[in-house]
């Protein structure tokens, strides 16, 4: 990878973050939040996207972003009113910016008229404003770089309204300011809008030609902004975007001060400061140093928009190659195994004689656990990164299907392992598409059904024990069970005589026979790509559950593991072989001698637990292992599979609880029915992880067949 490619990669990484943020801001704005901070955040993000695009020569993107920015600026300054129409246009434009970024990333070219319509509307909107003389209409992508000859609206005449108060702004740009495609002229112009400013350029720092560095920055400006009514904040706002890229000193001044001294002042200011200080303190003048400003705001736990004003210099996070993190995660996993192996080696004899060693091991255990948690936390990411793609999807779907759909999102800050998040995007897309396509009805139908015209899709994430629940809910028509069952029978997924509960029917939409869109797109129920949902979720050790209420909506629940790497399990033996059962699925365990079993006509057994009959699976039989343990000495492990369906697994013995690192069987072998994977125990042996859900569905299927 060349250096430029690396820069590009970083730029695209940043872009996706910015686009996510934009999506978030627009969602809030769409919901009616007209807070100026939001618009500023949007403006900043677009500006950053544009800046980078300019550097890499993505001219289409620059051109569009520039026009968009112009519009946003007018909205921001109040020249254009933030009507719903404008909001819609902005959101649409945001999608287009995303398109441009996506195309640039993929190295593709979008059709040259992409976004032209929106661009034209920007121009129309902007033209109708008083600031239209600032607008460059030729739409040339690079026009922002040759504005130096456009009329400057600054008044270079000293304003000698003696006695009047004003602000003396000392503005010294850094090299970075130019590097980020900012132009001091724009800033000066903006300042000029505050009143008749007096601008003086400071050229004293320009070195002799011999020392002159071509890209060096040698000049600064002093701007005197008159007027009693101008607040310091409004002056500061002008420099908001270059915060950290320049030195700014704002001091209250009496205009009458002889301007001739200004030059001297600019450079000996530090010495003069004390005399200003008292006067200035009340209005907090200071050279803005970006780091201290950034630090407290960025760590703002609520992630409010103020945080985004912070200068990029405030390093609160670092980019780390995921491989590196994975390596650490793997090593910590091995450490956990070694630690538990050591603990297992401690017999009573050792414990008596080497108490220090025992204590040391306990501390080691604690530290390891802590280390593991911290490492996992590094990999954890808020689901926001996936959720934020959904509003756009819903907008597009609503447009295509002529439905009115509102997307509600809850719990975006819930954190999940990065690997899980990566696997989440496709399933979520399918589920949302499904809800929008099949769930939500067209407005007329909704009105007829006495529902609000706008359908609601609710996307939520929450943590429940060792799992994360992602729920997609809609208030649409629900699953048409008759049709689903009919099709299931036609396709032989369900036997002709088989009776199914409503819940079982709902979950049929995930059955393999319902796998492709073509086969089922004609039913009013669901089924588009739902196999993708199931397989993706299963792959990461999660489960899917669907419930539907006819006429009232559908709820799909994804249950996902918090992390992929470590699992709390119960270690059991079946036929002298070690198996582990995920602790999260275990409800209770009991000795078989105390359990009440009932016998079914086909010879199967059921377990009676508190008035409930639960299907029994003898793991020895199921896994074809020979066991010589008497039935009464064996144990029943009551597990809960998806949809609160219980299943009792009969095992030979229960050894205990421990943490294991999940290892893939598929990596070197293939998937085995009823086994979710493998793990390595403290003694170095492999134990197999029981796939509770798999056992349950396989058994149901067998019974059905």
């Amino acid at each position, binding site marked *: 990878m060349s250096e430029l490619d690396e820069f590009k990669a970083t730029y695209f990484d940043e872009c996706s973050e910015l686009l996510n943020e934009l999506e978030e801001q627009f969602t809030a704005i769409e919901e009616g939040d007209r807070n100026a901070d939001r618009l500023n955040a949007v403006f900043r993000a677009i500006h950053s996207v544009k800046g980078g695009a300019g550097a890499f020569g993505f001219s289409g993107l620059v051109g569009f972003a520039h026009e968009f920015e112009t519009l946003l600026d007018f909205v921001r300054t109040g020249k254009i009113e933030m009507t719903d129409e404008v909001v819609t246009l902005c959101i649409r434009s945001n999608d287009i910016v995303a398109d441009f970024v996506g195309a640039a990333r993929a190295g593709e070219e979008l059709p040259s008229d992409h976004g032209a319509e929106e661009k034209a509307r920007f121009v129309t909107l902007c033209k109708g404003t008083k600031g239209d003389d600032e607008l460059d209409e030729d739409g040339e992508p690079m026009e922002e770089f040759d504005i130096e000859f456009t009329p400057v609206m600054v008044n270079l005449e000293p304003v000698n309204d003696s006695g009047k108060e004003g602000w003396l702004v000392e503005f010294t740009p850094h090299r970075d300011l130019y590097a980020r495609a900012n132009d001091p002229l724009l800033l000066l112009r903006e300042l000029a809008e505050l009143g008749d400013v007096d601008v003086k350029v400071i050229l004293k720092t320009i070195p002799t030609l011999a020392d002159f560095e071509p890209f060096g920055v040698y000049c600064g400006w002093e701007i005197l902004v008159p007027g009693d009514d101008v607040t310091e904040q409004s002056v500061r706002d002008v420099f908001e975007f270059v915060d950290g890229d320049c030195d700014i000193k704002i001091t209250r001044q009496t205009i009458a001060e002889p301007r001739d001294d200004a030059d001297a002042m600019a450079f000996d200011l530090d010495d003069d400061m004390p005399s200003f200080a008292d006067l200035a303190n009340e209005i907090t003048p200071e050279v803005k140093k970006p780091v201290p400003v950034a630090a407290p705001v960025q760590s703002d736990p609520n992630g409010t928009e103020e945080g985004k004003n912070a200068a990029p210099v405030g390093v609160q996070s670092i980019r780390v190659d995921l491989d590196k993190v994975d390596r650490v995660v*793997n090593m910590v996993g*091995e450490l956990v195994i070694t630690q538990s192996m050591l603990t297992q080696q401690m017999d009573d004899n050792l414990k008596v004689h080497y108490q220090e060693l025992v204590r040391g091991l306990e501390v080691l255990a604690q530290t390891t656990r802590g280390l593991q948690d911290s490492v996992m936390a590094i990999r954890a990411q808020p689901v926001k990164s996936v959720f934020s793609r959904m509003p756009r999807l819903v907008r597009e779907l609503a447009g295509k299907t002529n439905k009115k759909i509102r997307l509600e999102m809850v719990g975006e800050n819930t954190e999940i392992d990065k690997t899980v998040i990566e696997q989440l995007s496709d399933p979520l897309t399918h589920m949302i598409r499904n809800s929008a396509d099949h769930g939500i009805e067209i407005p007329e139908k909704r009105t007829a059904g006495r529902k609000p015209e706008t359908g609601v899709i609710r996307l939520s994430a929450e943590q429940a024990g060792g799992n994360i629940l992602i729920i997609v809910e809609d208030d649409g028509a629900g699953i048409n069970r008759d049709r689903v069952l009919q099709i299931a029978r036609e396709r032989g997924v369900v036997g002709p005589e088989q009776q199914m509960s409503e819940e079982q029917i709902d979950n049929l939409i995930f059955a393999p026979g319902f796998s492709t869109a073509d086969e089922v797109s004609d039913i009013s129920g669901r089924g588009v790509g739902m196999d993708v949902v199931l397989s993706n979720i299963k792959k990461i050790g999660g489960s899917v559950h669907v419930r539907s209420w006819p006429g009232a909506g559908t709820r799909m629940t994804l249950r996902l593991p918090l992390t992929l790497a470590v699992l709390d399990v119960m270690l059991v033996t079946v036929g002298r*072989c*070690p198996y582990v059962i995920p602790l999260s699925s275990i409800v209770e365990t009991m000795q078989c001698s105390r359990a009440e079993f009932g016998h079914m006509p086909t010879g199967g057994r059921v377990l009676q637990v508190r008035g409930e009959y639960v299907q029994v699976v003898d793991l020895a039989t*199921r*896994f*074809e*292992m020979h066991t010589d343990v008497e039935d009464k000495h064996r144990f029943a492990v009551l597990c809960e599979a998806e949809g609160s369906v219980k299943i009792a697994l009969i095992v030979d013995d229960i050894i205990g609880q421990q943490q294991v690192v999940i*290892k*893939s*069987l598929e*990596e*070197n*072998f*293939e998937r*085995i*029915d*009823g*086994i979710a994977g*493998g793990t*390595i125990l403290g003694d*170095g*042996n*492999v*134990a*197999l992880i029981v796939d509770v859900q798999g056992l349950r569905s396989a058994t149901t299927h067998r019974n059905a067949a």
Partner: protein
Amino acid sequence: MEALEINNEVDDGQVVETKTLQLIAFSIGEQIYGVEITTVREIRAWNGATPLPNTREFVVGVINLRGTIVPIFDLRARFGDGQTSPTKTHVVVVMSVGEKWVGILVDAVSDILTVSKDDIHNVPEGNSVDTDLLSGIITHDGQMVGLIDLHAVVAGAQIEA
């Protein structure tokens, strides 16, 4: 001396590469089989394996190979000669088949053979199991050595429902 010989072969470059083949030979009962040396990753003594449920009789189980799980195939059982009852003297040859690592359980590893590619005979038509599992036959010191087709050996491990 041996080291020298190997060096010579390596230095010979292309000629050696195209014309000859190095095999690891191992025995199952009296019969000798071989696999190409470059596919072999590791040879280790039998030290138990965790049986896998619902797999064919020739899948012995899985072992932990430095943190990854590797399946072990019983070559004797694969050839239909009944399951091996492994002891400490049995040997697991870990090999890479495509992207995957697998181990095969054999009685003993006997030799490293250098053979000419021209000397590889086709497997005579007959029993389909033989033609499936062997990719060729060579004669070494008057003994027949079957070249194992690893892909075929590891295929079809699960019991079809």
